[in-house]
């Protein structure tokens, strides 16, 4: 790239070549109007409003597409240019309903803006206008193409961002407009309702349905926040008026989601102001809840807590912190547990998702976090997605994967028993049997080693244990691998070659890897692959355990775990204990590691549970047993925004505030610490969790006095080295990725650049262990559980969003066509599915998405509780995660008996 000189409107500019005229103009604050141009979308050059005059070129050129060249003289505002723009606006207006008075987009509409700037109030062109039916058949948005100016942004968003291909231009000439196949309305298409089309529409053609009539640009304020759903942690703005969140917009800071969102992020906010929200503390009297005030509720909590502590000692407490609460809240919760209650019995749902990744990666590389950034995904040479249905569980991360494949020629390996959407983009799809991941990954490693694709230099410099590992791997027979995994040798070899030969590769995984009794081994196997090929610790290469909830990374970072303090500092090390005791101003801290989630449930020594923002009764395995077990508790406190299924069993329910009502931080899956900002006042008498914890603690005699969560973060920074440089000002609008080692440290895009936290990386050979349960005559099917795009967790939030329930109203069991023939059922039939632990009735969805012999149910619904079937006894020995992904079940056709 060389420097060249150009002249814009008389201004001499020296700049790099390779830019467009518009880019240079923007850099120098020369205002060029534009309608179709959008910085995150491909250039269309269709609206022609950005035309400029270039000396020596006959016609006007579109500045968005035209590259600069040395000596170029450009006029952006000459009479000729202005005339052309006016005519373009006049033409647009001649086919545009001039209903600005009632249009939702008024005030933000670009057509309106430029019409104002160019003084175009009406059109001299009278003629045909669009007369198109509105599409308001879906609950999310209205498409009124009579207002469409055909900028093509929505189409580009659908085709080149979401890769959904639901809309494209139909017809030609004046009749051209966006449309779907066979003129279907959106509800009849494959639309995933990400709403990214709506977000880029510069006029009022695509409008969020719920915002209609609620307020326009000048009525509202935008509050920066973070999406409260999955671990991507998309940056959003809450659009607020009168203490109500009217709608959500994606925020583009150029660091994460570029403004793109998924259906939940964009349309799943209706729970905030939902009437079901808990507005007052509840106390159970004679089996029934009664509303009370905060004083009375907290008094009762303190009384019971004190009583039980005195009676049974500190380890009678079991505390569940929350991956949906902020870093500050998790920090306070674990501090409360350790300091006030004096126990390490604190855990949270990370136990049920990435605990194996944590235990594996801690051993092999020394850090459990995703080593790369999300944006690196689109730049890697190879992506290996195993056990993760990215498009449904981390939809915005999936956009990066699709973009990599479609635009950058990245090769994609997908390993999944289910025919997930990403298999459509895969270079090779390894359809392995559920629970055989170690076998598959070792098979791949064998090919890599035998074909000499290992990175010898990297191994020599940075890895321990290669010789032994190689020896063990070589003993594996590829035929056996193929037999057990049900994947052909050719495909294993193909995948190994793609991964082994890539210049940079990232392995992404999710619950498909972790929720097994071999969860830790699975993750170690992944780590092994990265270490032998050197696909870690460098640009665009690494390991990426995709975190499931908005702050699961942060909750772990904050030490809401039974064995570590904030920053993964072990509770068993005395010097660490002393450090914390000193900072927290107490004499001693408990030294025995606490119980994990599942252990707490099963352990009869637990007499009290304090559960914040979780719903274990539905999310934890073996529902029926769990429900019984919780009855043994002497006292149960649940702190939540809704009266969830677990809260119904509680003695005291404390109303918490939602993410929109408080300040705080989340840490996303790529270690990005990001700020929530209070957008509305707490609903009812609810309080932010951190205030509730502070109040209980203070009233129990340990003063927790913070004026603002930022003060909590300052305390965290003192104790956690990777957060050392973090403070609210530094986090700013776009967030910062830990480690942030000092106040001047810029944050860390990828981990392990020069060395691993544990020095050298460790190769640990893993041996294949079959799942705890294997199919047999009585229970012939393997059940996997998991998520779907339109619901989240146990639906405490999504269950209160009408649109999402419209799209995914009930649980379905996915059954392969061949199995359906055996069972004798068809789609829509209600089936009885039973395991050794329970049975549910669920509707059938006959599909080839699942392989023969394996079935899939989502765990979201209380109408058919998948966790009534799952196995709470089969745990990964290291991380104690239950084997959600393999449960043997039998399926019976509905009979008149039930």
């Amino acid at each position, binding site marked *: 790239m060389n420097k060249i000189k150009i002249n814009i409107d008389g201004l001499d500019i020296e700049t790099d070549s390779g830019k467009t005229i518009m880019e240079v103009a923007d850099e120098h604050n020369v205002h060029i109007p534009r309608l179709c141009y959008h910085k995150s979308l491909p250039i269309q050059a269709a609206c022609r409003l950005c035309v400029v005059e270039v000396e020596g070129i006959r*016609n006007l050129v579109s500045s968005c597409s035209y590259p600069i060249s040395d000596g170029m003289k450009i006029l952006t505002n000459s009479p*000729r240019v202005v005339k*052309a723009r006016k*005519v373009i606006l006049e*033409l647009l207006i001649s086919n545009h309903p001039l209903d600005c008075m009632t249009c939702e987009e008024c005030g933000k509409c670009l057509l309106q803006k430029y019409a104002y700037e160019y003084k175009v109030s009406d059109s001299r062109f009278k*003629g045909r206008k669009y007369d198109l039916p509105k599409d308001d058949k879906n609950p999310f948005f209205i498409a009124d193409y009579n207002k469409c100016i*055909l900028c093509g942004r929505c189409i580009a968003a659908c085709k080149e961002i979401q890769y959904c291909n639901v809309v494209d231009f139909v017809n*030609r000439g*004046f*009749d051209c407009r966006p449309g779907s196949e066979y003129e279907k309305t959106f509800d009849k298409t494959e639309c995933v309702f990400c709403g990214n089309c709506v977000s880029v529409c510069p006029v009022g053609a695509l409008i969020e349905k719920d915002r209609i009539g609620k307020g326009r640009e000048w009525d509202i304020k935008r509050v920066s926040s973070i999406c409260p759903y999955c671990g991507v942690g998309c940056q959003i703005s809450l659009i607020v008026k009168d203490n109500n969140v009217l709608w959500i917009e994606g925020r583009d800071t150029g660091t994460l989601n570029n403004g793109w969102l998924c259906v939940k992020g964009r349309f799943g906010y209706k729970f905030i102001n939902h009437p079901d929200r808990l507005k007052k503390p509840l106390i159970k009297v004679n089996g029934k809840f009664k509303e009370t005030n905060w004083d009375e509720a907290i008094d009762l909590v303190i009384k019971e807590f004190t009583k039980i502590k005195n009676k049974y000692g500190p380890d009678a407490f079991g505390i569940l912190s929350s991956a949906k609460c902020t870093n500050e809240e998790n920090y306070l919760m674990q501090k409360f547990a350790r300091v006030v209650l004096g126990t390490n019995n604190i855990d949270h749902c990370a136990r049920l998702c990435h605990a194996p990744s944590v235990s594996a990666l801690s051993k092999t590389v020394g850090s459990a976090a995703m080593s790369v950034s999300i944006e690196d995904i689109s730049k890697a040479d190879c992506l290996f997605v195993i056990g993760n249905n990215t498009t449904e569980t981390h939809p915005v991360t999936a956009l990066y994967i699709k973009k990599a494949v479609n635009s950058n020629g990245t090769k994609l390996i997908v390993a999944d028993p289910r025919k997930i959407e990403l298999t459509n983009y895969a270079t090779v799809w390894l359809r392995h049997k559920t629970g055989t991941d170690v076998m598959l990954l070792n098979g791949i490693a064998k090919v890599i080693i035998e074909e000499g694709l290992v990175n010898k230099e990297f191994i020599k410099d940075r890895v321990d244990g290669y010789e032994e590992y190689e020896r063990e791997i070589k003993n594996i027979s590829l035929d056996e691998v193929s037999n057990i995994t049900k994947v052909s040798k050719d495909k294993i070899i193909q995948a190994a070659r793609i991964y082994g030969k890539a210049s940079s590769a990232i392995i992404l995984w999710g619950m498909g890897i972790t929720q097994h009794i071999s969860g830790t081994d699975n993750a170690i196997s992944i780590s092994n692959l990265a270490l032998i090929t050197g696909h870690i610790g460098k640009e665009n290469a690494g390991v990426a355990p995709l975190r499931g909830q908005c702050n699961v990374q942060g909750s772990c970072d904050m030490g809401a775990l039974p064995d570590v303090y904030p920053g993964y500092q072990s509770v068993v090390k005395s010097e660490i204990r002393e450090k914390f005791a000193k900072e927290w101003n107490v004499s001693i801290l408990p030294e025995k590691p606490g119980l994990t989630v599942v252990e707490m449930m099963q352990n009869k020594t637990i007499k009290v549970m304090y559960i914040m923002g979780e719903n274990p009764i539905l999310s934890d395995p073996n529902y029926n047993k769990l429900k019984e077990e919780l009855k043994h508790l002497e006292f149960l406190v649940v702190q939540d925004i809704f009266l969830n299924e677990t809260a119904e069993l509680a003695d005291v329910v404390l109303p918490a505030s939602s993410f929109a009502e408080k300040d705080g931080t989340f840490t996303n899956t790529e270690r990005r610490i990001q700020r929530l900002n209070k957008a509305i006042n707490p609903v009812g008498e609810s309080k932010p969790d951190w205030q509730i914890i502070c109040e209980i603690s203070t009233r129990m005699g340990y003063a927790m006095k913070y004026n603002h969560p930022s003060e909590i973060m300052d305390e965290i920074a003192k104790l956690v080295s990777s957060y050392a440089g973090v403070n609210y000002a530094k986090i700013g609008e776009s967030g910062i990725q830990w480690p942030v080692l000092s106040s001047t440290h810029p944050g860390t895009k990828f981990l392990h650049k020069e060395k691993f936290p544990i020095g050298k990386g460790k190769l640990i050979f893993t041996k294949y262990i079959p799942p705890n349960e294997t199919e047999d005559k009585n229970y012939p099917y393997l059940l996997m559980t998991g998520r779907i795009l339109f619901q989240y967790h146990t639906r405490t939030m999504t269950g209160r969003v009408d649109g999402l329930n419209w799209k995914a109203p009930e649980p379905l069991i996915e059954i392969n066509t061949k199995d359906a023939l055996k069972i004798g059922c068809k789609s829509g039939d209600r089936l009885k599915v039973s395991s050794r632990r329970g049975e549910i009735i669920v509707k059938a969805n006959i599909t080839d998405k699942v392989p023969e012999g394996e079935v899939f149910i989502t765990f979201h619904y209380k109408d058919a509780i998948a966790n009534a079937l799952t196995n709470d006894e089969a745990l990964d020995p290291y991380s104690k995660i239950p084997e959600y992904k393999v449960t043997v079940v039998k399926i019976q056709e509905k009979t008149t008996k039930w």
Partner: protein
Amino acid sequence: MKLNSVEDLNRYKEILRNKNNKSKKIVVRICSTGCRAFGALEVLDTFLKEIKKRRLNDKVEIRQTGCHGLCAKAPVLAIDPLGLFYQQVTPIDVPNIISHTILKGKILDKLVYKDLKTGESYPYIKDIPFYKEQLKIVLRNCGIIDPTSIEQYIMRDGYQALIKVLTSMKPEEVIEEVKNSGLRGRGGAGFPTGRKWEFVRNSKGRPKYIVCNADEGDPGAFMDRAVLEGDPHSVLEGMLIAAYAIGANEGYVYVRAEYPIAVYNLKIAIDKMYRIGLLGDNILSTGFNFKLYIKEGAGAFVCGEETALLASIEGRRGTPRPRPPFPAEKGLFGKPTNINNVETYANIAPIILKGAKWYSSLGTKGSCGTKVFSLAGKVRNTGLVEVPMGITLRRIIFDIGGGISRDRKFKAVQTGGPSGGCIPGKYLDLPVDYESLSSKGAIMGSGGMIVTDEDTCMVDLAKFFLNFLRDESCGKCVPCRIGTQRMYEILDKITKGKGTREDIDLLYMLAESVKDSSLCGLGQTSANPILSTLNYFKDEYMYHIDYKKCPAGVCEELITSPCRDTCPINDDAQGYIDFIKRGDIDGALAVVRKTNPLPSVCGRACYHPCERKCKRGEIDKPVSIRLLKRYIADKGKWIPLKVKLTKDKVAVIGSGPAGLSCAYFLVQKGYKVEIFESLPVSGGMLAVGIPSYRLPKDILKRDIDVIKKMGVRIHLNKRIGKEIKIFELRKEFKALFLGIGCHKPLMLNIPGENKEGVITGIEFLRKVNLGKKIDLKGKKVLVFGGGNVAIDVARVSLRLKADEVNILYRRGPDEMPASKEEIEEALEEKINIMYFIAPLEVIGDKKVTGVKCIKMELGDFDESGRRKPIPVKGSEHIVPCDVVIIAISQVPDFEMLNLPKEIVVGNKIIVDRDTMVTSIAGIFAGGDLVRGPSTIVDAMSDGKRGAISIDKFLRGEEVKFVPEKLKLDRLYKLEEEVVNWDRIDVKKLKLKTRACSFEEIEEGFSDKEALLESQRCLQCDKNRYEIK
């Protein structure tokens, strides 16, 4: 069989040639592509059967070929080695062709090309003007070889150019050769082909692609189609050479699926190339690999735009993207791509074989070589022509194209398809090359040429193209998507009579902006049809807007019927013809008299523009409208219209057609009208200008008498200026209409004009008509002039027993303004017309003895598109004679009239031509004194308009023009079928008797004849009215 080396190919060629030379077959080449629509395949089939039947297979080869070019005469065939050309051949002709021509060498004159004017036969291809003027490079094999036979292509040096580049030229040398040839892209924009290749060669990306743009979508263009159908290998060889030059190993031919024969022949060609080893790996063992695919386009015009075309090949929606980057840099699948069109590739092999020097010597400096044009529209020889660049439009249209069909007047030629522009008659001598065409606002385009004539409405033409373009706009960019729609809508509005003058400004503004700001060539050129028609034919737009009329009679909503619209006084010919059909002559007369005060006169002496526009003329010959009117006037019962003269007094000066017409309409409105006539007879020029063999005196009197009976008073021998002063008249009369004729002759302004024996035509006719005795017995008369007066004078002279009458005219027969019928009759009467002669001096002492003349020849074209006559030096000669009659032109006698100065400019009175208002309140004028010498019916039209204005003036209304909405009040809805008999010829006096008599020449229709003739009327307005 596979050709594994260059030697293999050359050997194969020799074998084929030897075999062919030995066979000595007669070859019948039948166009089986374009001519298919006219039954060529049936002809072919009959030939094959007949040849088989007669066992002539060894002697005769029946060959299916591509287009021969002369599509107008389809189906056509050629017979080798005789070099014969037969046209419009039917299966019935086939046995005769075999028996006579093929077996005996006899020419069948019926099937031979005939000159359209002279009727001369041209049996041999080499002589036919259509072919003689052409130079075929691109079309070298078209119509010669069987396009499905790669052997025939090879025999005619096919793939020799490929061998040459593969064996003896480096890619850079090939590019240099093409650069030096001066070849420019034939797709339209004319970018130098060699330079494009160089760009692609120097582009960094790999692989590279070659694409042939065969998405010919212009309405009326079929050049590429003909080449692909008739000689696909010429294109493919060009592509291979280009691929070698730029370093590509894969290519695509993007051809529209609507060209099934082209696709079929291309597929066969490519298939055969693969089979014999001209495509694939290691072609002819030279190490060159090339694969070729066909991509069929779905018929979107915009896919001719290169970026849209590439998108379409890639399987995406065919819409253009902005350039740069150009395809040479980032083209197909993002890789460097060379796109040329069919014709460009077809030029390559000859350039390689014959050299750049040869090619660049053809055509003009900036536009080398030849260009193929598809000649379409209102031209006689529609078809495909290939000519060297730089040839004039006139030669293409008139010499090769044979001129305009049905002797219509050329109006303009649209070049370059919908994106091009029109070029009017005054630029017919423009050399056809890239720069010249664009200097006149048109473009070369891909070579479409659509000829329009007087019957083409230019607004409608622009609308047609805009309709096409708005349909074909891909819809991506705003200016094109909405702009073309809005431009179309404005044009549509204008053609429906709803346009305003502001619309013209709006059109200009919109057109400029759309041109300036659209994304691709389609949008950028979409306004060209409007801009160029507005540039040259703005008056037609204004006519639609101001008069709510379509002068060409095309725009549906602005026409009643062509005859009526064309008539200056809107005589309702179909209306009265209806009555004739029903035998109601009186009813017919009543219809005529609604609009026409002088039916008997018009039935004889009108120049009947109605008949020229008559739709029946497009089938056979127009309905004889004038004679039907005469029939009505002669047979109908004349009842003076009842009028009540209750209003003001109006004076009309002059009792010619303008004055009489004005008076006629004024009395009907109740005004008391008095006409002042300087001559002793009423009728003006009708009485003293037209000889009585054309308009008998009593007939004229009949029309005038009726007008008089309606209350119009005519004062004879009252001369304005002398006896009566204009301003005095104004005192008595509330309004004045001046309808004076052109009675003052123009002189030749040469020495000797005042000699005895020299007389002016107008003076001569007046004397004769007023009964003055002139005896020309035994005299030799010379008449100077070329108009109707000159013909009248000559014919009257003949009737006055002149010994010899000669008309001398300084231009040629085509330029002669006199009506064709009159000239014909004059020639029948043995009047001699001498063209290209101009007088210099009248010779003689006192009396004329002769005129010194000079020969003329045609020089350059003047602004009106006519060639200027210039004297031939040294050709002076004397034409002896006794009498010289000067009949060149005449003007009103303003000196004598003594009119107010402010209304006279030069030889004309200045009026508003729509209202006949002069600059003096209350004074109106019309006819010859505002138009110059003109026609009867034009003068009548002026008189009528004058009457309308005078009425408004006297009623105190604003005198302004309001377009008259013509009503179609019919009594019957006619459903009769179209009859098929010919136009009824009117009986005329026998030549012998008529040449020496002043008796009326035409006899007029009998009842039966009139009925038969009336039934020929097509009633083309019958769908425009409803019977209540």
